């Protein structure tokens, strides 16, 4: 197996050549803006308004990964997510109202308030099958979901997300090995945001890259620019096609960066200032907008329209969440077992 494929940047003049329509690009932009504005609002609800409590891990800065990778899936394909899952959920089409309500712990939430932020992305109605808060544990689970889809024989695939830290767990290595042995249709998407909490990947990942780990398991791999949705989309599309065609799984590493820290209360001040500044200049939303303008595929007023609609959607979700009831405690017992 050759080394990881590195996805070369695609110039805005070549979008059409790569089969990227204006609609696809605008859809990805919209998802990224939805995620950004949702997360900014969530951050304010935690830090300024004190309306939300508990652990919450924001997707700020990583929007291009979810938008690009999930953007390349069909609607009936599946994903599994993690405790940093708000972005995956939005990209997969989960409405904001139940997402925000879940963060408030309300009965109208995606998980009726029983899951919280770390499991909010569980929404099988839209093919978002699970969100685990145990780092790495979603990898073998995705392998199993892939087995189900392989048996089903309808050419559906499952895409699973995890971070660089997860690739140091045993579950990751056992899970991708088994996926490769069974050639299941799974796309393993690593969001390499370069830190597991405060531990740097260049310290903790004893490999040339996350993607390089795939070679040990005879698995196809690629590295995409996780701040460029086009790069992620093209890499994901290739992996998805391979999985659909029975060629088995791919490990797709998307190199990206968190705008803020690990969790909502973490300022991330252990990161070198110049590193943070360099990544801020590579903001995925600004980057895509600039290229869409250059390519004459969109205008400033297109962006303003999206922003306006998204802002209304976010505010509506807060209103909805606040007005929603909490599940009565005496109903909990019926959720422990399927009766």
């Amino acid at each position, binding site marked *: 197996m050759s080394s990881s494929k590195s996805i070369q940047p695609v110039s805005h003049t070549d979008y059409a050549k790569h089969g990227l329509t204006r609609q696809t690009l605008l859809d990805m932009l919209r998802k990224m803006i939805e995620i950004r504005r949702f997360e900014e609002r969530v951050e304010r609800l935690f830090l300024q308004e004190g309306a939300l409590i508990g652990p919450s891990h924001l997707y700020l800065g990583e929007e291009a990964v979810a938008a690009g990778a999930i953007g390349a899936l069909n609607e009936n394909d599946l994903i599994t997510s993690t405790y940093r899952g708000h972005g995956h959920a939005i990209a997969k089409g989960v409405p904001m109202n139940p997402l925000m309500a879940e963060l408030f712990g309300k009965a109208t939430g995606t998980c009726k308030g029983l899951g919280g932020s770390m499991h909010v992305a569980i*929404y099988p109605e839209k093919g978002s099958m699970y969100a685990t808060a145990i780092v790495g544990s979603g990898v073998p689970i995705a*392998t199993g979901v892939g087995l*189900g889809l392989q*048996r089903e024989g309808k050419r559906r695939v499952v895409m699973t997300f995890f971070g660089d830290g997860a690739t140091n767990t045993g579950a990751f290595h*056992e899970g991708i090995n088994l996926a490769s042995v069974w050639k299941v249709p799974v796309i393993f998407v690593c969001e390499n945001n370069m830190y597991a909490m405060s531990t740097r990947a260049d310290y903790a990942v004893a490999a040339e890259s996350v993607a390089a780990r795939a070679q040990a398991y005879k698995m196809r791999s690629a590295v995409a620019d996780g701040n460029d949705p086009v790069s992620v989309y093209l890499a994901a599309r290739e992996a998805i096609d391979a999985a659909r065609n029975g060629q088995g799984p791919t490990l797709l590493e998307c190199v990206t960066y968190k705008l803020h820290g690990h969790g909502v209360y973490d300022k991330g001040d252990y990161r070198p200032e110049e590193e943070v500044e360099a990544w801020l200049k590579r903001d995925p939303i600004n980057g895509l907008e600039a290229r869409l303008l250059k390519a004459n595929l969109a205008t400033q007023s297109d962006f303003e329209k999206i922003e306006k609609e998204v802002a209304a959607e976010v505010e509506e979700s807060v209103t909805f969440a606040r007005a929603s009831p909490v599940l009565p405690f005496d109903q909990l017992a019926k959720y422990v*077992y399927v009766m």
Partner: protein
Amino acid sequence: MPELTYADALREALREEMLRDPRVVLMGEEIGVFEGVYKVTRGLLKEFGPERVRDTPISEAAIAGAAVGAALGGLKPVAEIMYMDFLTICLDQIATNAAKMHFMSGGKLRVPFVLRTQYSLGRVHGAQHSQFFPSIFFQVPGLKVVLPSTPYDAKGLLKAAIREDNPVVFIESGMLYRIKGPVPDGEYVVPLGQCDVKKTGSDITIVAVSRTVTEALAAAMKLEEQGITADVIDPRTIQPLDLATILESVRKTGRLIIASDDVKCGGIGSEIAAQVVEEAFDSLDAPILRVASPDMPIPFSPTLEQAYMPNAQKIIEAAKKLVG
């Protein structure tokens, strides 16, 4: 009635459920080509092929995780973990993922899979290949825990477990695979959550699980010769636990012994004793006694292992203390 071994009864259950439901797939170490370390999967690879009888690498975390995922993905997996000791390697998938999925998704997710395993206490396998620690699993709401003690129950309970919509930890006893017992031809299931009253008496109630059921029955026969008669009850599943049947017996006899192979501290006996005290304290004429393994790792030496294990003699001694 025809007789089958416990292992063959399990195999019949797997085979019948695979014929009945194409979603049932098996996965585990050595289950296909090698037909299982205990030959429970004998002939199944040939009959159903490698798509449904899936050999895995030695990857317990991935086996359990893939079973969880396959259940999410529409299958009904039956995963085998060769020794119960190895369940600690995949405990995260069972206890922290599978058991909570239905609850923390607000009832949306279902993970119907069976994790079969066995414990080898009595087979001279030493400290790392003999452990029996079912209480870990009834400490985790969301799981069902099944402990068959006869070929009849092994088949009927496994069929019921495969038809469950919840994750089931199905714990077999390695000591029982070669025992024979009556297993009727044709379809039957044993519902989870029903005690089997194996024998009735009036002086004492003996609750026993898995391998110790045979020991309890042997003890009851001996005690009867000495004029002490016992109810012998096998709960068959400890989650759910059919407490009502146990309470009914205790209210009649006023005395209770709980026999099981796990260590005494925090084990099956502890939990059943606590529940009986809470519900039927006034009916007890004597302290509740537990006949369990001592609170120490399992010794290898065959002589020491025999001394370590609960057996009929230890149950008789406990009974005599209570009915003295």
